[in-house]
């Protein structure tokens, strides 16, 4: 269905030689379309509601979701925008997390540790770059599994830096004089650590999201789209394919590194085994479920996948489906149930909405508009 796939990518529509003033205008007017305004309002309301609920359990899930969202937005730069499929994204998150943790040990302020984490992850991506540059499609997917395995092996065995199999703790981060890991009082009200992180993470996710979305609309982002759609014709149109792919992969890894640094600061405990293949598949699932190439989709996918175990736990305990008896050896519990749901969600999304949630919404929006147009014209 070539017609819909073109319509799904409004940014790819004009020719590469489109006037750059339009690029800049659409980039600066990122919040200009009606959909994005609605989305912004919804996000703001949800954020305020979550904060006002002051429920640390909800906030914790949201925080983990937002941390994952930063990594998912990053993976989307490689996958959705440029077509570099990666099953090894967790490794870059790991590089970022351990870089931030090690630097924090040496008293480096958290902000600079996070910047260094991004740099280290980007550098790591350059060493793996040759793989990403030479391969495509299925071979690339299989090759990046190798990256996931080798990375996890490194993390488990570099004991002095990562704590080995037992994991390591991370120094409590301080940002602009705010102790992020402690509850404190502000004007007589309790401000929990989770609230502070939530505010920080919403800001960071928005910043990252807006920057990546703007990048997608600029000439450079369109160049990446062109590479994804047809590498030879992209090269023929004067795009430096190799440089663009390396850059996209590095940006993707850097955002993974940032997510790792955030995770290190928030969780304050890092397990080297949590940056391997399974985590990488989760990032992939977030991007796919959200919708390839869509920043908002990646955020929604990340929040959904992260919240799935909690949501399912609430649902099953409310319905009394699963007796959560601790100490029994039964494996039929919310943990396995949420894994089943996780697999099922991936399969169903691929069958029902291969363009993900974002693609589904775009389709719905088109239909509604078409319906309205019909009515306005009196056809209906």
């Amino acid at each position, binding site marked *: 269905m070539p017609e819909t796939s073109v319509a799904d990518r409004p940014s790819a529509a004009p020719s590469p030689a489109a006037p750059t003033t339009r690029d800049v205008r659409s980039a600066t007017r990122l919040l200009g379309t009606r959909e994005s305004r609605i989305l912004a309002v919804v996000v703001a309301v949800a954020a305020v509601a979550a904060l006002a609920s002051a429920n640390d359990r909800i906030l914790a899930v949201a925080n983990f979701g937002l941390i994952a969202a930063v990594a998912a937005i990053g993976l989307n730069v490689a996958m959705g925008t440029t077509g570099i499929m990666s099953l090894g994204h967790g490794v870059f998150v790991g590089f970022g997390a351990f870089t931030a943790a090690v630097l924090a040990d040496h008293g480096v302020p958290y902000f600079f540790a996070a910047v260094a984490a991004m740099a280290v992850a980007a550098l790591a991506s350059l060493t793996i770059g040759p793989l990403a540059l030479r391969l495509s499609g*299925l071979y690339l*997917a299989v090759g990046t599994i190798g990256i996931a395995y080798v990375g996890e092996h490194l993390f488990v065995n570099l004991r002095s830096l990562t704590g080995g199999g037992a994991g390591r703790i991370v120094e409590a981060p301080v940002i602009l004089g705010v102790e992020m890991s402690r509850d404190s009082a502000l004007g007589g009200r309790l401000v929990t650590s989770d609230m502070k992180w939530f505010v920080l993470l919403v800001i960071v996710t928005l910043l990252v999201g807006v920057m990546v979305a703007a990048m997608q609309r600029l000439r450079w982002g369109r160049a990446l789209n062109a590479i994804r759609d047809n590498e030879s014709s992209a090269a023929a149109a004067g795009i430096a394919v190799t440089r663009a792919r390396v850059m996209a992969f590095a940006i993707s890894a850097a955002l993974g590194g940032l997510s790792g640094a955030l995770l290190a600061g928030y969780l304050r405990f890092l397990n080297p085994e949590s940056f391997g293949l399974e985590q990488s598949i989760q990032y992939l699932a977030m991007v796919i479920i959200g919708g390839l190439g869509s920043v908002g989709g990646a955020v929604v996918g990340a929040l959904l996948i992260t919240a799935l175990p909690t949501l399912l736990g609430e649902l099953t305990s409310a319905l009394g489906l699963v007796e959560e008896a601790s100490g029994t050896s039964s494996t039929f519990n919310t943990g396995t149930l949420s894994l089943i749901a996780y697999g*099922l969600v*991936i399969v169903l999304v*691929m069958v029902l909405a291969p363009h993900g949630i974002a693609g589904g919404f775009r389709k719905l929006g088109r239909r509604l508009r078409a319906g309205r147009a019909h009515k306005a014209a009196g056809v209906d």
Partner: protein
Amino acid sequence: MQDFLQLAVTGTALGSVYALIAVGFVLIYKSTGQLNFAQGDVMAMGAFLVYWFGPGRFELSFAFAVLLALVGTCAFMVFVEFALVRRLAAHSHEAVLIGTLGLGILIRAALTAGFGTDKLGIGDPWGSSTTTLLGVSVTTSSLWAIAVTGIIIGALTVWFRSSRAGVSVVAMSQDPVAAAALGVNTRRMTVIVWAIAGALAVVAGIFLAGYPRGIDPHMGLIALAAFPGAVLGGFDSINGAVVGAVTIGIVQTLVAGYEAPWAGVVGHNFHVIVPWLVLVVVLLVRPQGLFGTKRVIRA
């Protein structure tokens, strides 16, 4: 030398398991261009079916349990092809890859929910018995693994050469459009290929469960090491996949046998990542593998 021989035989047996999985990957990839990421988990499912029909629930004899597991797994693969893969393939090959990835997670979770995470024995007749061969003692199940895999691969080769269906599959893998134009029912052939991959996975699961390993829901992840084997052999060559997979199995087992003194340099459990290091090197140096066609690989 004794150690070496023992490791070599054990490695060949492990490589045979990888080979059965790798041939499943390659068969599907070659004839349809799709990558079935759930192949390892289908293998786990097959092994659990043997357990379920055998010692786990129905106490059937091993041979009967295997037969039912074969039928069940083939039926499952046909269902997957009909209900899932066909729809996804209409969208893109990547959609198939991700959809089967989700299917694999689903199978793994369902097996965990149903059977737990403890290691189980599937009641194979070899048990922990050993056989002395060339003066070294090896488990009987590894000898069976090598022999049965050899027979299966041989039979498949003959089938590809001399049966109408086999030749149709080969034709389809070379040029699906031309094959269809010449009267090959590509849809039916695709279903057959998925069923064969399912049967191969069951056999692989039985031998991966051999002493001292047993089965658990995560055994499918071990079988991922068949990917490096298939890539080493050249992803579109069946014989190549067998050679590559057996090589990976032998190298991995030898490394596991001799790695202990080197743990300070290469890290613990280095053998787990050996197949993946081989994979990365192959992809960088000779992406078409040992026997593959050159055109399909580069971006």
